[in-house]
């Protein structure tokens, strides 16, 4: 499979996954509410996971949001790996640097 096809498939299935989880959460919240007091919602992975296991719709939507936020990161990983396998070391190096910058941003808690 061409690298372009792989990337396209990844973006497509990642988006579909995130949207399906969010749609499920929204549907459940229609019947059962968010499962949290108003304007409170989970923001850390462990709380989201606990919430999903407890079947709280708010946590299920948040899980979908996390899946969505992971798409760009996964896409860089996939692309970087693809370049590496094709021995295009310059582009693989650039991908690795971008990934490093994203990690720094996450650790520093960068905002707009």
């Amino acid at each position, binding site marked *: 499979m061409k690298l372009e096809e792989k990337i396209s498939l990844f973006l497509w299935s990642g*988006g579909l996954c995130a949207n399906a989880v969010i749609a499920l*959460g929204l549907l459940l919240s229609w019947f059962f509410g968010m499962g949290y007091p108003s304007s409170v919602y989970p923001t850390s992975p462990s709380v989201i996971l606990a919430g999903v296991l407890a079947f709280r719709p708010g946590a299920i939507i948040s899980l979908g949001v996390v899946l969505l*936020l992971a798409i760009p990161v996964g896409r860089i990983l996939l692309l970087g790996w693809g370049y590496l396998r094709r021995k295009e070391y310059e582009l693989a190096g650039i*991908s690795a640097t971008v990934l490093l910058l994203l990690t720094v941003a996450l650790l520093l808690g*960068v905002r707009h």
Partner: protein
Amino acid sequence: MLLFFISLGAGFAGALLGLGGGMFIIPAVTLGLGVGMHQAIGASIVAVIATSSASAASYVRENLANIRVATFLELATTSGALLGALLASQAPGRLLSFLFGLLLLYSAYGMFRSRNAELPEGISPHPVASRLRMHASYFDRSLDREVPYQVAGATRGFLVMLGAGLVSGLLGVGSGMLKVLGMDQAMKLPMKVSTATSNFMMGVTAAVSAGYYFTRGYIDPALAGPVILGVSLGAHLGSRVMCHLKSSTIRKVFLPLLLLTSLQMLWRGIHP
């Protein structure tokens, strides 16, 4: 439900023009729904990532988004965004808005002059672009033929993207617009390739600040959920339509929006 339809429109327009849809989401939810600014930016970040994923899935498959150009330029946008975010508290916001407005106005003039050009002509390929094998081709459905193109001005394009990253870090707006302009005006890519590649890159620029907004609780699932569903569907439809449009048509939709944003930025710079 209203939120879903606003988002649908934002995703459609964002996918068509390479803008991500954040610039439509923020005013809609702050003015229309009375949502706070932080939550609105949080919603716009998820909207940008959703638009980018949905539209880029088709653009990459259609060879409209150039992944090599994107990889090269992402280095500039992420560095710029990180730098901008670190400098944001010390930056003279009004002066920056004014300068950004001028830059957009100048680009609008450049785009106005080339408004009827369907494809770029007289390109001298840039050595960096040749080395990283960025030159490519795509099948244009509106012209019904394969369009080969070469990439010029890689250094200038890189600098514009550094600026686009900085602007998104400092001002929180308009980076999609600069991305499209950088590829269209500096690197002389066909307009459709510019908007498609901008969409492809945009998710990564947004991801730079996504972590911050998520962990601080600025991404409210009740707001983000409908926004993501609407934007994803809108972007999916928008990317389908875009493949069949002419480059000159996309330019003519882009131009008034560019002019409006530049005036808005100039106003923000003059008015306290």
